[in-house]
């Protein structure tokens, strides 16, 4: 499996956190919220694909 995915997701999380703080400090709260939601959607898409792949391998393995 691709172990570097964990580091990618952690990097996205940190970037979004930093961006969020920067934007809130500079007074643009709505853009901060938008970057948070965008980061969340990206991470969610990646994780959902991995979970779907795992569940499919389990299905084939155990004969669902």
């Amino acid at each position, binding site marked *: *499996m*691709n*172990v570097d*995915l*964990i*580091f990618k*997701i*952690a990097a*996205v*999380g*940190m970037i*979004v*956190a930093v961006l*969020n*703080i920067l934007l809130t400090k500079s007074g643009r709260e709505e853009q901060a919220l938008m970057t*948070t939601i965008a*980061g*969340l959607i990206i*991470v*969610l898409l*990646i*994780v959902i694909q*991995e*979970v779907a*792949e*795992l*569940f499919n*391998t*389990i*299905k084939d*393995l*155990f*004969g*669902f």
Partner: protein
Amino acid sequence: MEITQMAALALIGVCLIVTIKNHRPEIALLLSVLCGVIILAGCIPQIKSVIDGIKNIYNMSGIEPEYMGLLLKVIGIVYITEFSSGICKDANEESIALKVQLAGKVTILGIAIPLMVDILNIISGILK
């Protein structure tokens, strides 16, 4: 993927999750889901060899192979249910974790009912 890799991966994942946790808890949760997925996917080859071993032993015993399929299905259901209910517990959502476990139990019962019917038929056949 040996156990050493998986253990190290879990430690690294936990460190990253803790760093992100207080800033972005939702991304930390998704990161823990990803760590779980990668570790489980790492041990799929071992599970495959264990299942083949069980199948060989089972074929030697001469019982109908369909019961073997049911057994494996139940194990798979437990596998998936534990995975998602554990993650729900991580997110402090106890009620959703219990619902997932309830769904898993109901699914397993749905699989086990025909087996019980077979056994009862056999028993009633013997008693007659």
